[in-house]
């Protein structure tokens, strides 16, 4: 809808449209929050993998050093 089309709407219709839009926005926000929470739950389901990652502190450090050195050479 364009601005001109809005101007042709009655105040009552405009109020109704605002109400509908707010309700849709709330539903979309709710859906977004739900997806975020689902993603977080699914990430926690992989906690064992993250525990393993924590074990590799030294190799993490070496990977990092290698990356820094490579960048320096370039």
């Amino acid at each position, binding site marked *: 809808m364009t601005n001109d089309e809005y101007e042709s709407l009655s105040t009552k219709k405009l109020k109704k449209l605002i109400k509908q839009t707010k309700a849709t926005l709330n539903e979309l926000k709710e859906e977004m929050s739900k997806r975020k929470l689902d993603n977080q739950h699914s990430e926690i389901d992989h906690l064992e993998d993250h525990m393993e*990652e*924590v074990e590799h502190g030294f190799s993490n450090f070496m990977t990092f050093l290698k990356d820094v050195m490579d960048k320096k050479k370039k």
Partner: protein
Amino acid sequence: MTETSQIHSGTESAPNTVKTVLQWLAIATLVYLLISSVGMIGAGFKGATKGQAADLFQFATNPFMGLIIGILATAMIQSSSTVTSIIVGLVAGGLPVETAVPMIMGANIGTTITNTIVSLGHVRKKKEFRRAFASATVHDFFNVMAVAIFLPIEILFHPLSAIGGYFAEMFVGGDNMSVKGLNFIKPATKPVIDLFTDLSHMISENIAYFLLIAFGILIIFMAITVIGKLLKKLMVGRAKVIMHNAIGKGPVTGIISGAVITVLVQSSSTTTSLMVPLAGSGVFRLKQIYPFTLGANIGTTITALLAATAISGETAVFALQIALVHLVYNTSAVLLIYGIKSLRKIPIRGALWLARIATERKAIALLYIVGIFFALPAALIFITNQF
């Protein structure tokens, strides 16, 4: 489920149960050894200094020196639980509590190196590295800030020592609520302490007490490392349940969950390092990770409290006092810094700023780690010695 598969799963779960039971037995044995080794350090330190422990640690009476010792020792062995347990043992051997308090504070800073190193593993993906590094260094900023606030206050007014002392006196020192009569730890740990004392005397009569301290430190380190590894395996399921329940429930639940998980795995480094990949993936925001990290600070104090139970006799009250100082300090820091909105935001802003510049120039991350945890403390020791 078919009958065959039921039989199959039954035969599979039996060895698992046996394995779990054995793992718990190993943990119980290691906790016993941990408690005994704290007693060994206390006895060794007392014997080595012949009651003059305060003189031996004269160089650390400067609180900044104590702080630096705590930072360096923890950063090198990457375990604050080990360092705080050793400190409890040293206090039991005569190290003054006021000398030990800055060391405990330093251990808090030193332990943050572990999750910072874990965050370096995300170096290949720019955005991921920025988020991971920020989630790790928010812990550093918080702990440095806590020391900046609490150390001067402690030097001037000793509130932490006073509160720790009050409760320690209440639990083990006073006449009314004393548990002295019920102390079964001393007879329980005596055989191990006696065994290593005899062994130390057999090796060398001259340095027997120093050997006893060395054995104690070695056993504490090994016990805490193995306990941590076993608990990680055994408690991962429980940690998952706690984290699932904490999602979307606000910061207080996050702090409590972080503390409980740390108690379960007996390592704040494990809890804070676990948060790094969760933040790195972008699924959890820094604001959500932050309370878990603070909870880890509180949960980690359980090890020193456990270590303090090893001590009996006249120094038991001081050993418990320093363990309680650790608890009171970390709890107060969370209440003060996280409780005040303007203070709460400082570690987040600091971590985001550092992560941004470290993402652009990776060498800064390396400089930061070497500088904060090793070079700066070493330089401060040098400067302190000069003046």
